[in-house]
């Protein structure tokens, strides 16, 4: 392989054999504690294992081509309800297919890559990852031939299998809904990403709805939080928005976590929801139904996303080869009291 440089990959049994100068079968025998191998050879194999960093497969996995029927589920965090429910659903769907799961919480890009490449997911037959820190395209490239990976959500294209959330469709629907209820000064509470007009599909849906309605895109109506997975970030960015004095009659939020913070900020600053300001979110988390007022949101059909992901992964684990596939799921607007017409 020439350039680009070969990405690091998990050490294999063959690597151990090569370094120890023995056959793969001999390595197997040593690791399984079988007889018929000299002490010197055993020592060489053990050293080789250390040197290449080979993760000995444990508990239920045979060293030949046998499968463990275990899948790693990787999410970036659990304090965002979207990811906690996604992890739950994946675990249950995999169990229904006869796969046990092991969950990894990947706190940064290095952890995501480590999970996808097999470094921290030894002994599994496949990986389902909900990417957040690493671009989808790079994560797809880091996957190993021996370890099928399916990505759920995320932005961009990938060489591997992925499920794409119906973000554009969902955001378009919720923005149109606000326009239909008579709102004209629609602020957005988004993530920062360093750019004024983010390139993501969700934002594009909002833009399209505004253009359709002949409404201008006003920079003063755009506010970014420091961490859209934290409610307090939505709170802080709304305080900034209100302080700016800009006229607004709605806040369209990038997700429900942000929207919960926005609701609180509006309330503590004397703005009534929905009478003065409508608020909408995205994700339709369990929390959204019980806010005061209940939060209009977009259900990204997580169940469909999970079903598609598990289906694609099972096919790969059963031996399907070929180019990566992309499945896009739909989205449903859930209208609740927070965006009721005035």
């Amino acid at each position: 392989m020439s350039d680009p440089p070969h990405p690091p990959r998990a050490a294999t049994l063959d690597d151990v054999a090569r370094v120890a100068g023995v056959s793969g079968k001999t390595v197997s025998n040593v690791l399984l504690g079988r007889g018929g191998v000299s002490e010197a050879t055993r020592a060489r194999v053990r050293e080789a294992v250390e040197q290449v960093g080979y993760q000995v497969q444990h508990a239920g996995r045979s060293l030949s081509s046998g499968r463990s029927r275990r899948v790693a589920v990787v999410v970036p965090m659990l304090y965002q309800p979207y990811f906690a429910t996604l992890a739950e659903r994946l675990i249950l769907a995999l169990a229904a297919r006869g796969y046990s799961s092991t969950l990894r919480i990947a706190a940064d890009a290095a952890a995501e890559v480590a999970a996808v490449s097999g470094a921290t997911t030894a002994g599994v037959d496949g990986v389902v990852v909900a990417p957040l820190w690493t671009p989808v395209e790079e994560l797809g490239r880091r996957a190993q031939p021996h370890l099928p990976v399916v990505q759920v959500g995320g932005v961009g294209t990938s060489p591997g299998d992925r499920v794409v959330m119906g973000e554009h469709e969902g955001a378009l629907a919720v923005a149109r809904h606000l326009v239909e209820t008579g709102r004209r000064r629609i602020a957005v509470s988004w993530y920062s990403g360093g750019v004024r007009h983010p390139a993501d599909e969700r934002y594009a849906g909002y833009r399209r709805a505004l253009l359709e309605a002949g409404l201008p895109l006003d920079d003063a109506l755009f506010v970014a939080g420091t961490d859209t997975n934290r409610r307090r970030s939505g709170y802080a960015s709304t305080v900034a928005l209100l302080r700016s004095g800009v006229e607004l009659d709605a806040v369209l939020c990038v997700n429900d976590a942000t929207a919960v913070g926005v609701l609180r900020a509006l309330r503590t600053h004397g703005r009534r929801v929905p009478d003065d300001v409508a608020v909408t979110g995205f994700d339709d988390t369990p929390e959204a139904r019980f806010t005061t007022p209940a939060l209009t949101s977009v259900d990204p059909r997580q169940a469909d996303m999970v079903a598609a992901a598990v289906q694609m992964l099972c096919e790969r684990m059963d031996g399907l080869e070929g180019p990566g596939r992309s499945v896009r799921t739909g989205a449903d607007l859930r209208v609740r009291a927070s965006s009721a017409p005035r």
Partner: protein
Amino acid sequence: MPSATMRDVAALAGVSLKTVSRVVNLEPHTRPEVVQRVRQAIAELGWVPNGSARALRTGRTGVLAVAVPDLGRPADAALVQAVVEEVGRRGLQAAVEPTGGPEQRPSRLRAVVASVGAAVDAVLVLGPHGDALAPLPPASPVVVVQGGGTDRVDPVDTVDSDLAEASALLAHHLAVVGRRRPVLVGCARLTSRGDALRAALDAAGAGAVAEVEPRAQRREEGFDAVDGVLAALRGSGPAGGADAVLCGSDEVALGLLAALDARGVAVPDALVVAGVDGLEEGSFSAPSLTTVALAPEHLARAALDLVADRLARTAPAQEPRRVLVPVQLVRRESTTGPVPR
């Protein structure tokens, strides 16, 4: 930039976590070239081996299993998150193992525990475990966190929130805000094991006027409990109708707050409401929710310290240890009223 972990060292040196640990613990039989590479990586990354990571002596896999029943409840998810973060902070890897519903949990738990010494170095069991741990000796590297419930038999070390203290804090707080006739909604976790809640209410000159026991501790159940609560509010017992609601979990309390708002019942004016768990959501509800914070980070830290002792064999081998982690009352609008502007 986050500080380097043992995993980073292993990746840079091109070795397993086990090898890094062996080098750090000065164990013999590692090739000099490998030792050199690891030391170089440590220097390059500026990694400081955590004292307790050394004490853990995870010379084998560097992986700790965390057995959890489910992730659907924010309180459970928060505890898992805290445990995983604490494991990472000690330079180790957490493998979260879902153990499923009541039927599958015992056998799945046994399978996870059976992997100690092979795939993992220790297991943290979150939540009730039935009798799945019965055969284990006390010195096992297995720790139960928030094992909950009544009739518990814990052969191994345990870490729990001090729910008796939680009951006392809530009862006292009720008296402070001048309420004495609470409805108890889903308070089984506070009334089991010696019923500290009722004793505390009694001591505060208060008494429960009604009890509602929802099927589950979810928002929906809290929402649906509103009819029982309103009946108690309008009730005509010897002391008058209810003036407060104590919920066994924040989720139930948050569902109830939404229902009370929908019915036009003013909180805290007509009824004060308080929960238990300390969920972040409770800061953002309308009104914000008074609660007892269970501090999952402290639970995680206590559990990891117990595991470290067991792996290092520095704890008494014959008896399991019991750690009770203190809790804290968080006063918010649902009992004290809006913050003056």
